[in-house]
């Protein structure tokens, strides 16, 4: 049985606990064991990253080092976290100076980065460690006639040569999983574009305009729902459908990948925290 250490990141546990839970139950059902990382810290994405490269490297470095100390590969379910951890791992592996600096700080708590652990994003677990066939065969009640638009998340898939998750210009993992469980994956304009989330701090108006633009592109293909693989994207694509600037058109449910996958492999809504979703996806999840 494969085992990973789950790094939840700051946002999922607070803003989207259902996602965290869904990951646990779905992966368990598909034969992947998880241990949640404790005594962790923020990966430093975006904020620390922007102002001090070494500090940023140290923060992500510590997370990598903790995983090493427990001798487990890391599962990241947030785009920003997986992006940071992979990026910093790449740098620590290729920049001796930086690694020494980081290890110098880590030493005080008996931690050390040597580069033995891998960082994987949820999508990789599905493709590499579980596989589409295993998912197919796990399906007990496949979906029928539901059209779903996949949103992958920028930091999940880019830069391709560092994160190694999927084809950055033409990603397919989520779509193939949607297919595997009987849904209809729909293509839409600007599939690989950003949700706007990262700009919320600097310019909420533009950030939301970007998010709404994506929603409208998805609506244009008459999708019933949106499947995500990043907590920030999920929250952003949900919240832009509320409040000012959002039109009165019907809201499109935004569902995290495990929440969508769960019901098809026989997991009940409660264990997936479906009731916590801001735009109810039940109509979709009941379409069998």
């Amino acid at each position, binding site marked *: 049985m494969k085992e990973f250490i789950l790094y939840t990141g700051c946002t999922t546990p607070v803003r989207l606990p259902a996602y965290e839970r869904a990951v646990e139950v779905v992966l368990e059902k598909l034969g992947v064991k998880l241990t949640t990382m404790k005594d962790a810290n923020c990966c430093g994405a975006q904020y620390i990253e922007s102002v001090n490269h070494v500090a940023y490297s140290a923060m992500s470095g510590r997370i990598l080092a903790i995983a090493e100390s427990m001798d487990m590969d890391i599962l990241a379910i947030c785009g920003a976290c997986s992006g940071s951890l992979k990026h910093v791992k790449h740098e620590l592996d290729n920049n001796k100076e930086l690694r020494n600096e980081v290890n110098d700080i880590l030493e005080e708590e008996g931690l050390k980065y040597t580069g033995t652990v891998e960082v994987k994003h949820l999508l990789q677990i599905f493709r590499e460690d579980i596989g589409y066939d295993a998912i197919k065969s796990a399906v007990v009640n496949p979906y029928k006639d539901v059209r779903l638009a996949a949103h992958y998340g920028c930091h999940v898939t880019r830069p391709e040569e560092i994160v190694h998750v999927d084809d950055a*210009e*033409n990603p397919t993992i989520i779509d193939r999983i949607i297919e595997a469980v009987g849904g209809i994956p729909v293509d839409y*304009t*600007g599939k690989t574009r950003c949700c706007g989330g990262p700009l919320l701090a600097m310019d909420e108006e533009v950030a939301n305009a970007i998010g709404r633009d994506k929603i409208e592109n998805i609506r*244009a*293909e008459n999708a019933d729902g949106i499947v995500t693989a990043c907590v920030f994207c999920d929250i952003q694509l949900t919240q832009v459908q509320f409040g000012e600037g959002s039109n009165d058109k019907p809201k499109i449910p935004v569902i995290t990948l495990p929440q969508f996958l769960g019901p098809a492999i026989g997991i009940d809504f409660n264990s997936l925290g479906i009731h916590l979703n801001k735009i109810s996806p039940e109509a979709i999840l009941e379409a069998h």
Partner: protein
Amino acid sequence: MTKKASSALVVGGGVAGMQAALDIANQGFKVYLVERSPSIGGRMAMLDKTFPTLDCSACILTPKLSEVSRHPNIQLMTLSEVGSVTGSAGDFKVKIRRKARYVREDLCSGCGDCEANCPVEVANEFDQGIGFRKAIYALFPQATPHIYTVDKENCTDCGRCVKVCERNAIDMNMKDKFVTLDVGTIIVATGFELFDITQYPRLGYGQYPNVIHAMEFERLINAAGPTHGHLVRLSDGKKPKSIGFIQCVGARDVQKGVPYCSRVCCMYSIKNAVMALEHDPQAEVWVYYADIRAFGKGFEEFYEMAKSRFGVRFVRGRVAEVMEGKASHDLVVKVEDTVTSKVRLIEHDLVVISPGVIPSSGMDTMAKKLGIDQTDDGYIEISHSFFGPTVTKIPGVFVCGCADGPKDIPDSVSAGSAAAMKATIILSSGGK
């Protein structure tokens, strides 16, 4: 010294190879011209018009084709490929595989009765798969030699062509033949291929029916092409009122492994833009570029004319995305006009991508057989840009045309003549 082989081998029957063959033959030496397709003519035969004079490509090429095929000193070997090569300057032994044509070259008169009676229709590679041809076919009307060829993969062996052929030229049991040539010198003129633009999913080629590439456009506007020269959209047969040309795709792209400039895309696109307006003066035609490279004789003047007289609109900016309206199949191009810093969404009925030029397939094996070097880009390495621009590291082996890098037609022709000059020096001195 003993006189050695006084004949030459030219590999590749495109415009460069033909020119090289002619210039050697005109000096009285024997030339074997080996071409892997059923006809000589190369890429130029597929083009509609040529820049900067808008000459009809086939029309100016045909005399060369017949000149080559009728030259007493040139022996054409079409549907043929180079095998092993041994020996040295003045005395090479080259094995040639002559693929079975299933039609006797000595008997076929090119009358076309067989084609008329063939029931099998397959996509016509000469028309870039837009039009159809039969399973027994001639590549194009002026195909040289004008001898039919059976496409065994698609032939159903129904036997109709065999029956109707009055000269009994069709022989379905024909086998590949191997011949060994003694030649004093070898000229490589294997030409180029177009970059596979499906590697740019963001531009929609292969997903959107109205995104085509330049060579497809050439066939679409060609009077002898699949649409008889009517420029229409493949999705609905409508005349495009707005056309966008996208430059530097598969060229000047470090990330896609083609860091070099393809040299011809700017001009052939300007030419195609002008032709589009010739077909429909009311149309809107746009060209999206990073630099316009109109560097040859008369090119800049042609570019200027395209702007001022024809009203082709040029936008300095590389296109990031092509989007499609699912129902209408109309297209929208997303680009920054870098001169005004405006992000523009421009609607088109038709988008034509200008693919860059890459070495022809099989270049690697060809280079190995001959023992010559290749550049990082995969083209044939020349010995020195001043002392030997057509010379390879193997004495007696020369290169011309696009085999050593992208070139336009006049540059390929000059290089063909230059390679011929070097080759005949070898021949006249018996390899010294």
